[in-house]
């Protein structure tokens, strides 16, 4: 009886190796921009970096603790600058307070040398207050990369808290914009529900929360597609 099948023993099967470069949407700022709604595309700044900015798209000079070398930072967010108005006004009042003190407090005259030291001490405190408020605004950031989201919080002196969650652990993204000021200046909260140990990560008072939510959605879709296709970085 003739053989139906004869295996080619000793011969190794030929495996076609493909060296396709993994192209990720999140690695190209313009490609990611095109996936967003037209109205939101116009709201996205160009991929240039301003150190003192509350909304940075693909900032190129940012490093932080816990970052992976291959991770691409897509968004660097801070609280909207308008949230600083309160302490700025307080600083202005503190600077002007000594001029009006004699009209408010009953006149108790200190010698001139004590007045000078008290004045210097008052302005020192004012400077410290302004510095603390500024660096608190500047360093409390939210970061979105192509793999994770981060919440960097400096709660008080020498205490920091960094929370991160993988994009594929995000279950729900909710944006909150309420009130006249927030609607006028287009800033609000982005609440991210995750399946990680920390169930919720909050982006508080960030500019353009709708843009942030849509970018997160696109990144999550990309992660889902990669999972289905079995692509792993």
């Amino acid at each position: 009886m003739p053989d139906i099948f004869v295996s080619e023993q000793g011969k190794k099967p030929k495996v076609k190796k493909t060296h396709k470069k993994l192209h990720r949407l999140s690695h190209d700022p313009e490609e990611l921009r095109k996936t967003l709604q037209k109205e939101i595309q116009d709201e996205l700044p160009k991929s240039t970096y301003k150190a003192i900015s509350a909304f940075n798209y693909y900032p190129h000079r940012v490093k932080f603790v816990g970052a992976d070398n291959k991770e691409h930072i897509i968004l660097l967010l801070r609280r909207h600058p308008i949230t600083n108005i309160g302490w700025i006004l307080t600083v202005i009042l503190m600077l002007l307070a000594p001029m009006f003190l004699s009209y408010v407090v009953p006149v108790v005259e200190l010698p001139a040398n004590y007045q000078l030291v008290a004045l210097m001490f008052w302005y020192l405190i004012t400077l410290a207050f302004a510095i603390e408020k500024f660096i608190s605004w500047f360093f409390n950031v939210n970061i979105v990369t192509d793999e994770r989201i981060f919440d960097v919080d400096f709660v008080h002196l020498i205490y920091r808290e960094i929370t991160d969650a993988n994009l594929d652990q995000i279950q729900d993204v909710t944006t909150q914009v309420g009130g006249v000021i927030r609607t006028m200046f287009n800033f609000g909260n982005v609440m991210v529900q995750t399946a990680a140990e920390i169930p919720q990560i909050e982006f508080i008072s960030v500019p353009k929360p709708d843009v942030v939510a849509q970018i997160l959605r696109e990144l999550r879709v990309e992660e889902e597609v990669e999972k289905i296709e079995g692509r792993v970085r």
Partner: protein
Amino acid sequence: MSLDQLINFEFSGSLWLLLRAFLLLGLFIYLIFSSVVIRQINQMTNTLEVGFEGPIRFLGWIHLFLALGTFVVAFVIL
């Protein structure tokens, strides 16, 4: 009405001495706080590098030197 006239003349010298001691102690504690601010800025800039560390560190050091200057001035003139 000056503070000196409100208080019994016999005790005014001791009161000023006490006030001077409290002011100097307060300024010394503030000096320690200023150095803690420097430490805080260093920790923050090590956690997050965004390209603006120089001016912020400079602010911190200016604050420390001003605190030191105030302490020295208070020590000399009070």
